[in-house]
């Protein structure tokens, strides 16, 4: 399916929707029915409504219907108001966006219109620092090279500036021509992939040649991005309104339900069944008693010929009498305490990161209890365990290892001397470091140069090169300028062969402006580059260096280069353009073509970059593991680095204490055998006090997840620790899903866009607002500044939340059951007719003022001090295993309420026998008895 956009042509514009954005859930008219419908989808609400409706029948209601309708309406009104307020805010912000004035070209002249009136095909003009109103294909910018810079933070959370270029066919059009431009853009139907835009453009005569020109995401300005550092830009609207990439990717994430909520729901169901049983038993007993006894009691004056429904009256009365068993207050109380837990996390000073000025934030206010029940933590490595602050530490150039003694190549005299001596290998190495990247140098007025890089590795390399006097000074469009020892070298960047996670390398084709020679510069993972070395090059030293660096926990990149002949380049360039304008399978085709150029490289050397562990990571992991949480490390990094980091941060222990089991292999059979072996070892040694961990890489994992899922599940259950390296984002999510399917509570923590899927998949997603942007933090339920805060989040906030909710929910049932059991007991002395001992006012007062409101102080309850908990992390086991809220604890509370009800009732009726036997007195005495007793329970249980 394709969409054809005719530029500047009014006649086709009505085929697509206008640019009106609508994020609202309701309209003015459907708000009430739709909102009520949504609210009544919950079982509890249906139940309460049924009870409230039954109470309207005065024959059966034991209490004033207002006592149920009142709270019910308040609850509904509160949540409806909240929804309405949220929706109204969305409406206002939509309206603001829709009514924002933008410049478009209409009939050859620029006009100022509201953003919502933009139609597909319109040319939209944007000035610096303005927001892009819809998805545009760039046609012109103020910069002569045809580039502009955008900030895409609202789209993907990345805060660096991205360069966007106009399609080659539009280069050189002046603004006059841009008003008249006509043409057609062929693009896919709207989708939500913000990294892909496989389209092409053809301008109609008289505008230059009418060749088809390919378009990529680099030629677009997407809605909600900001134009930066560029005076103006203009483009053709291709997707508008809710059909933009942003609009399409908007979605309601599935609400997460905590294990506790599920348990409370289950217990509510059990209570409901119990209630039905009571109703059936007492209802029939009541009917029997009525027919055998009550009819003899002339003063009750039963009619002899009653309507048929009279048989239902007594059971229904009991239903209403018992309806308080499921307290309305529980929902309100739980909502309240849950939002308080979230606030406490937001407010907590001790998990505020001073360095980056980020307080912790609970985006999802409903799942704090799950934090206390985490059993598996799946963690990303880079940026999560480590600081993601890349520093160039060592390198190996042409067989010489630099930076071995001091641990810092930049201070290695030998390297500095080599640079000073113009050692050709070193210079080539540094040139590749400075050029083979997508870094944008930005010159400040004072003359200092700073770099905007999408990848921290590239940033480290460019900075290191500039420290070694090969300074990337500017990059204007296709021209790059390098200063080396006061010499200025100009390069023209011909092509960029971009990095993808499949290729694991990136290359750049440049031509030296002086000599006109063309070079291919490549950098990438060792296994992606080293096999491309030209025949006869000795790569053993490099392999050794890679191993050595990996053992030190350094990230290695392999750098290579090759000179290209003009003919070879031109031939290849044609293929490359072709592949780039393909509409189907573009990525694959481009990769194919790239491969044709990247071969017989001259390997220059290895760079080793250090990514330091964050503060407190080993301690945090140690404590969390003591508390019985299992750790899995999922990383895209290579095996040796991953293991090294795992050793450094206490995740695994070295030999005698621990043992690593490798699952590897290239073919299915090998992997299967390896898996079998590991599983066997795991089974045998599971009783020994030895820390076992398994290591698996992405390739083997792929085979395992498709073919040997069962065996792997068994392994996952047996193994407390695992390291999965070279895994893709979707594999991360699959692993989370696998653990979830074994009924484990999982927490996924990560910092980058590649962790988003795992974060969304896990029961709890924690994002670290780090250097890789806010994407993970945005998708997460909790965002924190540093990994070490996880300890406090789980042990303090999670544990307290669990304990408090466990108490509050069970107490809510206890106090309702207490009063309900008294009512039931009373019915045995009142002819099983369903008389309510308590009047409406006392019931309501009991439920609200005496019990529900006072017990909310439980949000401040701390059973043990924070210090005790962190000193004895094993205590978390109680929460993890759900020891405080499960059917047996609930049975305890149930029994307690029954026992208390019997005690209160018996004492009351015996103390108030004979001449003192009077309804109102008795009811007040029983009520105050219950109030005192439940208050005593609260004081006893809160610690």
């Amino acid at each position, binding site marked *: 399916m394709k969409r054809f956009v005719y530029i500047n042509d009014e006649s086709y514009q009505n085929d697509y929707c206008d640019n009106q954005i609508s994020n609202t859930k309701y309209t003015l008219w459907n708000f009430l029915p739709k909102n009520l419908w949504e609210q009544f989808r919950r079982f509890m609400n249906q139940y309460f409504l049924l009870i409230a409706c039954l109470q309207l029948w005065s024959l059966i209601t034991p209490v004033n219907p207002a006592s149920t309708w009142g709270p019910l309406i308040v609850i509904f009104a509160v949540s409806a108001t909240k929804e309405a307020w949220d929706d109204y805010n969305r409406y206002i912000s939509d309206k603001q966006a829709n009514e924002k004035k933008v410049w478009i070209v209409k009939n050859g002249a620029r006009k100022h219109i509201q953003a919502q009136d933009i139609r597909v095909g319109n040319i939209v003009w944007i000035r610096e620092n303005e927001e892009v109103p819809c998805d545009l294909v760039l046609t012109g910018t103020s910069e002569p090279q045809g580039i502009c810079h955008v*900030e895409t*933070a609202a789209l993907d959370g990345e*805060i660096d500036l991205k360069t966007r270029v106009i399609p080659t066919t539009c280069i050189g059009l002046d603004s006059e021509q841009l008003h008249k431009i006509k043409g057609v853009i062929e693009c896919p139907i709207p989708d939500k992939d913000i990294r892909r835009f496989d389209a092409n453009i053809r301008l109609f005569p008289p505008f230059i040649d009418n060749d088809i020109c390919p378009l990529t995401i680099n030629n677009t300005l997407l809605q909600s991005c900001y134009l930066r550092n560029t005076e103006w830009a203009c483009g053709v609207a291709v997707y508008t309104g809710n059909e933009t990439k942003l609009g399409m990717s908007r979605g309601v994430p599935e609400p997460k339900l905590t294990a506790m909520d599920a348990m409370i729901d289950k217990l509510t169901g059990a209570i409901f069944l119990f209630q039905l049983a009571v109703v059936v038993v007492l209802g029939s007993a009541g009917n029997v008693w009525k027919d055998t006894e*009550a009819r*003899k*009691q*002339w*003063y*009750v*004056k039963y009619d002899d010929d009653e309507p048929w429904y009279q048989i239902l009256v007594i059971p229904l*009365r009991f239903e209403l009498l018992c309806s308080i068993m499921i307290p309305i207050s529980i929902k309100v109380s739980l909502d309240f305490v849950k939002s308080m837990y979230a*606030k*406490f996390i937001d*407010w*907590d*000073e001790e998990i*505020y990161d*001073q360095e980056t*000025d*980020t307080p912790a934030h609970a985006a999802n206010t409903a799942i704090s209890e799950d934090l206390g029940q985490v059993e598996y933590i799946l963690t990303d490595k880079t940026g999560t365990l480590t600081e993601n602050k890349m520093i160039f530490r060592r390198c190996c150039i042409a067989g010489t290892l630099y930076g071995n003694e001091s641990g810092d190549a930049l201070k290695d005299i030998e390297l500095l001397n080599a640079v000073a001596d113009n050692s050709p290998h070193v210079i080539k190495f540094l040139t590749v470091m400075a050029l083979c990247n997508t870094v944008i140098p*930005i010159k*400040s007025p*004072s003359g200092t140069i700073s770099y905007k890089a999408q990848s921290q590795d590239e940033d480290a390399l460019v900075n290191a090169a500039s420290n070694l006097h090969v300074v990337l000074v500017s990059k204007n469009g296709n021209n790059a300028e390098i200063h080396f020892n006061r010499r200025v070298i100009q390069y023209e960047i011909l092509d960029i062969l971009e990095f993808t996670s499949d290729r694991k390398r990136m290359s750049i084709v440049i031509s030296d402006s002086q000599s006109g020679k063309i070079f291919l510069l490549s950098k990438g993972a060792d296994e992606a580059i080293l096999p491309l070395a030209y025949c006869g090059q000795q790569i053993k030293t490099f392999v050794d260096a890679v191993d050595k660096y990996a053992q030190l926990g350094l990230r290695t990149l392999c750098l290579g280069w090759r000179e290209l002949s003009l003919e070879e380049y031109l031939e290849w360039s044609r293929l490359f353009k072709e592949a780039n304008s393909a509409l189907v399978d573009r990525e694959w085709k481009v990769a194919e073509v790239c491969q044709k150029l990247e071969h017989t490289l001259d390997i220059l050397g290895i760079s080793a970059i250090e990514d330091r562990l964050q503060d407190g990571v080993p301690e945090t992991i140690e404590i969390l593991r003591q508390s*019985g949480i299992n750790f899995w490390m999922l990383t895209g990094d290579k095996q040796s680095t991953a293991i090294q980091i795992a050793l450094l941060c206490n995740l695994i222990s070295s030999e005698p204490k621990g043992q690593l089991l490798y699952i590897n292999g290239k073919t299915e059979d090998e992997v299967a055998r390896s898996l079998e072996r590991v599983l066997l070892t795991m089974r045998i040694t599971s009783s020994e006090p030895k820390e076992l961990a398994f290591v698996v890489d992405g390739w083997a994992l792929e085979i395992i997840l498709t073919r040997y899922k069962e065996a792997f599940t068994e392994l996952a259950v047996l193994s407390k620790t695992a390291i999965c390296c070279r895994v893709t984002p979707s594999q991360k999510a699959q692993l989370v899903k696998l653990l979830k399917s074994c009924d484990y509570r999982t927490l996924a923590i990560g910092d980058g866009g590649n962790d988003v899927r795992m974060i969304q998949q896990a029961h709890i997603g924690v994002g670290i607002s780090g250097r890789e942007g806010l994407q993970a933090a945005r998708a997460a339920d909790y965002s924190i500044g540093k990994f070490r805060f996880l300890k406090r989040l789980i042990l303090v906030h999670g544990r307290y939340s669990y304990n408090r909710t466990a108490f509050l929910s069970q107490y809510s049932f206890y106090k309702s059951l207490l009063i309900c059991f008294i009512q039931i007991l*009373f019915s045995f*002395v*009142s*002819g099983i*007719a*369903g*008389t309510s*001992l308590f009047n409406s006012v006392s019931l309501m007062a009991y439920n609200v003022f005496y019990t529900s409101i006072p017990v909310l*102080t439980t949000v*401040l*309850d*701390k059973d*043990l001090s*924070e*210090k*005790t908990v962190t000193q*004895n992390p*094993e205590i978390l*086991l109680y929460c993890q295993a759900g020891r405080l809220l499960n059917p047996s604890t609930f049975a305890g509370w149930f029994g307690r309420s029954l026992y208390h009800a019997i005690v209160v009732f018996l004492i009351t*009726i*015996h*103390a108030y*026998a*004979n*001449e*003192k*036997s*009077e*309804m109102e007195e*008795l009811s007040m005495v029983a009520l105050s008895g219950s109030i005192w007793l439940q208050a005593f329970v*609260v*004081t*006893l*249980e*809160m*610690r």
Partner: protein
Amino acid sequence: AASPAPRSARAPSLPESTAEAAGAGRAARGVYRGPERRGGGGVAAAWGMMMDGSAAGTSNGGSGADGDAARRNNTRMPKYSKFTQQELPACKPILTPKWVVSVFFLVGVVFVPVGVVSLLAAQDVVEIIDRYDHACVPPNMTDNKLAYIKNDTISKECTRILTVTKEMKQPIYVYYQLDNFYQNHRRYVKSRNDAQLRDYKKSNTTTSCDPERFTADGKPIVPCGLIAWSLFNDTYSFTRGKENLTVNKKDISWKSDREHKFAKNVYPSNFQNGALIGGKKLNSSIPLSEQEDLIVWMRTAALPTFRKLYGRIYVDLKANDTITVRLSNNYNTYSFGGKKKLVLSTATWLGGKNDFLGFAYLIVGGLCIFLAFAFTLLYLIKPRKLGDHNYLSWNRHPAGR
């Protein structure tokens, strides 16, 4: 917990001493907190200044937007308060054996005397109970009591002789006691309209009075409802030898009822006019607030066995006095097998004759003292060190996780 709450003794595996130590640590930290707080603020302020100073220069980390936000608010550091940091003062008493034993002992020591005093008070009360519903049926009708009570032509007069067993000081309360009479039946207890009784303007409102709302010709009944309709109508008069013992029927109802719930200007009307007569008829020239029998009756009993005050006799009775009671046995309890009893009773400060409270106090008190001793013994025989980490559940069963 904000409230002083004893820690439960049910969780002996918790690290008591660490909790205590942590409590101490907490206090220490509270003291330490002050300077640290100021220090933190200082750092934040200095940081803010630094940010301002470096605004002109370029920095590698953080985008402009971040810098702006930081400068605007200075810092996003959460505001400190004891509430937000969950550091409100709390009292955490630990239930040590000493505490538990002394609390139990104290409760026992208080409860036992209270129980003894209540029992003695209840013993002082003299009570004469006479069941007459059976005895007042003529011997020839004992097989068909229902026919007896329903037959208006048979005289319901009856005489009972009571002997005073112990001296009874005035005032002597005269109660009638009904057994197996469900004044608390839902249909019965709801069948009244309080507005009607309280306000003469609302004498026509008879909602919820079903099935005694209107007369056959549709006039509203005052007082309406089953309760009023079934008003108790046995009467008693007492003589000692030749001496008439007057029963004072004044002030037998609650003062608040007379003054607020039953109006002075509401008169009975259309009452007991139906085909089926329930109980006593009311004099329609006397306002409801003075119909004290009705007021007493309408305070419904919560239990199927109850006593209601009939009146008081302001005469001292001596032991072995014989009292002749002349009663009219009108009220039908035969249809449902209820009992009717006449009760003469004195009262003490604790009310009537009811041993329950005394026994309850004695039993609870006794149990507490027993437990106090049992715990003391247990503590002496098998003492446990407070806060012994070996009792922690994960230390006891290291493999139990």
